[in-house]
């Protein structure tokens, strides 16, 4: 992933927080880090090969890891966008994802349409829900303490999860993809549902990029992320940008949920499963860096799968957190974050 952002245009504002949503370091520096990361991944794969002694097993792990990683990236993109612009660590992200899954499940159950068509319902619904959550619960806390925002989003996630539990019951549900198929990619098994989810995640990521890069609205979002006060001074409606950003971030979770629905068993507490991973991806990619989130997602997907080869019987999260801690130790601002 090359650096999409260019050097920041605005004159430096020392008092302002600066968070380039699309990565803001020089291209050379980013390429160097990407190369180092890639090199380390290659070494990890080589060691896995030696450990397992089966090329097929490692190849399957790599393929599965990358496919899962795209989805993680998409989930984390929404989360990191919200953090980058609003400075809110949104613990309700996973619960909102679960809501979208149940919307997909409900629509498929009720109408029998193709699961992917529920994107047309789930994404707008989550967009509106995100806007409502921001307006109703969070916009008033702009100046409030961090703990308050955290407690609000955490409380909201408990509320949403238990609401789902009450409404749908704890019985796990499945969303089947009609006409799902499998094919072999040089020996590794890839299911259609997984491939579509991956491609969908990349596509939505690209759309989000384009939106941030090329539209007036995207420019406004980036302006607010880089310097809220400055943006306000030149006439950007910051509160509106905040609400819309939160809504877009939540809509990303909605899209990810529909794409992932055929791959998982839908339960009210499903969000927790993705929440932890998404947060790790966000921090790894550099808080508030949308491009970093996608790369971080792919990386974490890989690490998760390779962990099962390295350490049988350990939670794959062990490997994820090991990488997480090492990266934070070496680069506290994340792989693609900037020193603040």
């Amino acid at each position: 992933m090359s650096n999409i952002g260019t050097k920041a245009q605005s004159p430096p504002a020392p008092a302002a927080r600066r968070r380039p949503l699309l990565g803001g370091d020089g291209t050379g520096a980013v390429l160097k880090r990407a190369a180092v990361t890639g090199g380390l991944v290659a070494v990890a794969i080589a060691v896995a090969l030696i450990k397992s002694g089966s090329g097929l097993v490692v190849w399957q792990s790599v393929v599965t890891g990358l496919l899962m990683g795209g989805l993680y990236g998409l989930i984390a993109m929404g989360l990191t966008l919200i953090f980058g612009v609003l400075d809110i660590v949104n613990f309700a992200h996973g619960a909102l994802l679960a809501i979208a899954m149940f919307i997909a499940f409900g629509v498929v159950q009720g109408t029998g349409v193709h699961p992917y068509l529920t994107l047309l319902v789930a994404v707008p619904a989550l967009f509106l829900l995100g806007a409502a959550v921001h307006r109703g619960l969070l916009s008033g806390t702009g100046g409030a303490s961090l703990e308050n925002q955290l407690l609000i989003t955490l409380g909201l996630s408990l509320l949403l999860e238990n609401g789902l539990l009450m409404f749908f019951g704890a019985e796990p549900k499945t969303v089947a993809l009609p006409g799902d198929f499998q094919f072999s990619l040089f020996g590794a098994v890839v299911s259609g549902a997984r491939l579509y989810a991956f491609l969908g995640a990349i596509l939505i990521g690209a759309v989000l990029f384009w939106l941030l890069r090329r539209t007036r609205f995207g420019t406004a979002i980036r302006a607010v992320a880089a310097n809220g006060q400055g943006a306000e001074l030149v006439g950007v409606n910051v509160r509106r940008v905040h609400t819309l950003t939160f809504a877009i971030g939540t809509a990303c979770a909605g899209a990810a949920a529909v794409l992932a629905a055929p791959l998982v068993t839908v339960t009210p507490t499903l969000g927790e499963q993705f929440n932890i991973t998404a947060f790790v991806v966000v921090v790894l990619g550099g808080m508030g860096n949308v491009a970093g989130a996608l790369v971080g997602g792919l990386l974490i997907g890989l690490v998760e799968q390779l962990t099962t080869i390295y350490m049988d019987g350990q939670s794959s999260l062990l490997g994820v957190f090991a990488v997480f801690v090492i990266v934070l130790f070496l680069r506290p601002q994340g792989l693609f974050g900037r020193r603040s």
Partner: protein
Amino acid sequence: MWARKLAAGLGACAVLAAAAGCGGSAPSGAAGVAAGRDRGPVKIGALHPVSGANAVDGQQMRRGAQLAVEAINAAGGIKSLGGRKVELATGDTQGKAEVGQSEAQRLISEGAVGFVGTYQSAVSTNAAVVAERNRVPFVMDVTASDAIFANGYKYSFRVQPGSAAIAGAAARYLKEVSEQAGKPVRKVAFLHEQTDFGSGAAEAFTAAAKKLGIEVGPNISYDALTVSDLTAQVTQVKASGADVLAVAGYYRDSLLAAKAIAAVKPDLNAVWGVSNGAYDQPKFVSDAGAVAERIFSTNYHFDAKNPQTAKLRQEYQRRYGAPMRTGAVLAYDAVQVIAQAVERAGSTDAEKVRDAIASSSVEPLTVGTGPISFAPNGDNKTALPVLMQVQGGQVKQVYPAEKAESQPNYSVTWRS
């Protein structure tokens, strides 16, 4: 900047968790001799997770216990006590060990002569301590862990076969069924979730298989809470050259495993569930579709060949609009054990009821080799795991022969 946020978030989590888990601690001492045991209905406690992640099974089991109470009352109540009626005192563990503990104490304080429960081993472990302290019998309907019965407890009993018994039977049935099919098992790969439940099943199975001369390996485990794909693990199985894959997991992860197996198509003769949380559930068949076909599972099970069981399950279906699961039938059996002990003791004194339970002989509606009767350690001597298989979209009992509804089909769908 964000480090502070994360720290604050984790702090908030801890505060919330602490606030959520405020179960009152149980007073000790023989508070069990509570008021109200000698008058009014005879109270039997039912302690299950009717809220939280296991609410579906907990709800099922509470209803099973309720049906048992109604059946006893319809048959004239406790005759040796002049036809006194039986009443179910219900408690909700919320799936948490500490809540289960305080709820057990509450049921005892309300005058329960004994109680059944709790579906989860960790919760049962705590409830057993409460039963011991108050000298009130605790008859477990579903509790997989065998560790509780190594403590020399006097007041704990169990109806279901334990996890070691199930794993041992799974190995024995595998040897016998594979030999009958003319494809004797050589090497079993074992895929299991990594907590006590799955690892315990794998260890017990491995020990039993070794005695039978079956090689077990590789042993692959995963984290049931976070796993979202088992394709790579099943590919490891494929590379290992095993001819049977045993799977011990909960519902969600076992479903993932079944899908991964269907995708990778390893060269297996059979897929073999051990204490598996999915492979003998009708829901699994409807969720997994064609993928579920011919998967085996060794587990406790309601007795599909017993007409009384069939009648009970029809009644449940009519009343609650859902098929009655094995857990609920076990709860029914456990309540019957306590009620019949009260009948034989002719008393609601918990001590006398406990002694009557110890010499029980109760006809079960779940699969067993005879009437429920307890070994000195409290385990059910006649509990029998049974082998099931998905055949034509139905879960069928296939082995041993006297419990079989149809013949086992020792093969997989993707290899003729």
